[in-house]
């Protein structure tokens, strides 16, 4: 499953991150690394992007970009 498919209100664990280096690095710099816990907090009013809690702070990612993050 990818982060883009995760349901609102659920907590998931990152298993793998795909994508090109600049993008991947950016996402990882923000604390989304292998094994980190993500809480899917909410979806923006228009259905995208999603707001997640990672390492104790809030981050917004587009669903499309979130497809690169494999979670379980």
């Amino acid at each position, binding site marked *: 499953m990818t982060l883009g498919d995760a349901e609102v209100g659920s907590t998931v664990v990152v298993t793998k*991150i795909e994508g*090109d*280096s*600049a*993008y*991947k*690095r*950016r*996402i*990882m*710099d*923000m*604390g989304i*690394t*292998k*094994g*980190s816990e993500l809480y899917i907090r*909410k*979806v*923006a*009013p*228009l*259905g*995208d*992007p999603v*707001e997640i809690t990672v*390492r*104790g*702070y*809030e*981050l*917004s*990612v*587009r669903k499309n*970009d979130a497809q690169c993050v494999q979670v379980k």
Partner: protein
Amino acid sequence: MAIKIALAGNPNCGKTTMFNALTGANQYVGNWPGVTVEKKEGKVKSKKAKGEEVVVTDLPGIYSLSPYTLEEVVSRDYVLNENPDVIVDLVDATNIERNLYLTTQLIETGVPVVIALNMADLIEKRGIKIDTKRLSMLLGCTIVETSALKQTGLQELIDEAVKVAKKKETRLPGEIFSKEMEAAVEDVKGLLPDSITEEKKRWYAVKFLENDSKVVEAVKLSDVARSTVADLRTKIEKNHDDDMESIVTDERYKYIQKIITTTVQKGKEKLTASDKIDRIVTNRILGIPIFILIMWAVYYVSVTTVGTFVTDWTNDVFVVTIQNAAGGFLERIGTGVVVQGLVVDGIIGGLGAVLGFVPQMAILFLFLSILEDCGYMVRIAFVMDRVFRHFGLSGKSFIPLLISSGCGIPGIMASKTIEQDNDRRLTIMTATFIPCGAKLPVIALMGGVIAGEAAGYAESSFIAPLMYFIGIVAVLVSAIILKKTKPFSGKPAPFVMELPQYHFPQVKTVLLHVWERLKGFIIKAGTILFLACVVMWFLSSYGFAEGGFGLVEDSADSLLAAIGGVIAPIFAPLGFGSWEPVAASLSGFTAKEAIVSTMGTLASVQGDVEDAVNVASGVGAWFPTAMAAFSFLLFNLLDSPCLAAIATMAQQMQSRKWFWFAILFQNVFAYVVALCVYQIGSFAVGGGFTAGTAAGFLLAIILLVLLFRPDPYKNQKVYAKRSVQNV
């Protein structure tokens, strides 16, 4: 010699507030990530520096020292090449895990680090406990608890930083990575040239392992060394089944997790007030209505009710009083009619019309600053991203556009937070399509003219909202057209954005903000506009008449008429081919507000230059039809902004080629749109079919084709460039 402190830290961790508290400088502070892009310097207040000369450089807020964003490259270049004596690393105590990620990179650079554990006052409230002694020992650097906002711990921080800077000894971090990685780092250190000093070797070694493009380019290794590094990298990558950058990032976070388990006690997970607010304002159902309501309230209050009241008072009472007083004074001391005309009508009348507008702008900026400081602005980007992505932009483009509704200059500057070059350029080019505060008097004036011409409309109050709407549509249409061209193509930027906690707007921060933005406007009004008023007065009062040069009775004999007359034919297809509106448009390039004052001067309007009916009756004759007046307004809405904004554009584009392209695009776009609207509009209301009508239809068709043609670069897999890659 002065002690050099580099102030580093994550975006939105209170860095700029800290910089201001230390240096006493009035600097721009914002509550969305990445406000500061260039570095700023300031001297530490002498009382705090205790006789030493201490200079602080405020580095842009960054999350990492990767080579992928402009801010990161600026920061790391400064730390590595400008030899600061000490880095003060600001760590947000309420968000310590991610903040320490940058710390682990800073301590590798070989520059001594002092950690300022900021927002220390909030820790207790959140129930967080941090064992600073132990953390300090584990990281190998001093930690000082501070609160930049409440100004606590600052003296201690400066004392500590000065002490560390004087000692000049660097304590390199212990083991951050796994045994395997640490061994590889040691190996690579041995391969580095001697030109890299011992204490910087660790940083370079890690970067070589990561294959950091900028470092590999800057430091030349021998072929043997290069292949050894490559071998080491491949081996580790194979073992981990991942790429090196990810392994390094991963291990850094693992290290942080390890050290904070013994030093940081997290508070109970409870809903903070910020979370509760956020639940409502970005709610799926209520989010958009709340956004619209807030925006409507902001504009309603600042543009119609309070704003109009204050502006009217300034114009009707304040300016007129000064005008009368100055006129009376000049008459008493016996100056000639010429000087009286220049001062009373030219200068006071012109400037007054513009300065009368300052209160309205102040109110608008006040609201925008409050929204920005409390953290709502970044939520707007979150809510609006979906809409903007549709047009190839991100929610981040919305903030510059929104600020441009006040003034284009801070709006253009706000585009700095957009990472991808093409999106940033596009936003810079189109931000000024949104009517800025200075265009409002023009809109009000022309609204009056249009209403006067079109007998069917009793009032013109629909014109202002219409102009905002047209501005937004113009931005989106330009975005679609340009995104389908090669230079602007590319996969949409990944939208990864931190959503900071809400907080009560700080009075000081908000007022500073308003003042910073207003100051720019007032200075502009005081200098450029002052000159523009004098020049315009001169050009419109003097000319060749009755065989000699001198004051002219009829402004049709003036120099301005001559200049306007020469270029007027260019604007004939737009419906305003006489010299007066052309001259007014010209003066608009010095400052948009000048359009109104120029028109007032040209029409010799007495008294309230901003009263739409008053001026409208004077200038109405210049526009044969309502359509022509509308076309004039459209052109002046969409063409290049005022000189000050143009200068900001040049500064932000950082490329001559792109700057001129932007200017060309804006003016051609404005011309084409105004032409289409005038020609097709005139035809539609019963005018004959002329060559102009044909040209209008032709251009409209071209515009539509550009707009609706399939995107030739749709399937591009490559992300658009970020400027750091070609710096």
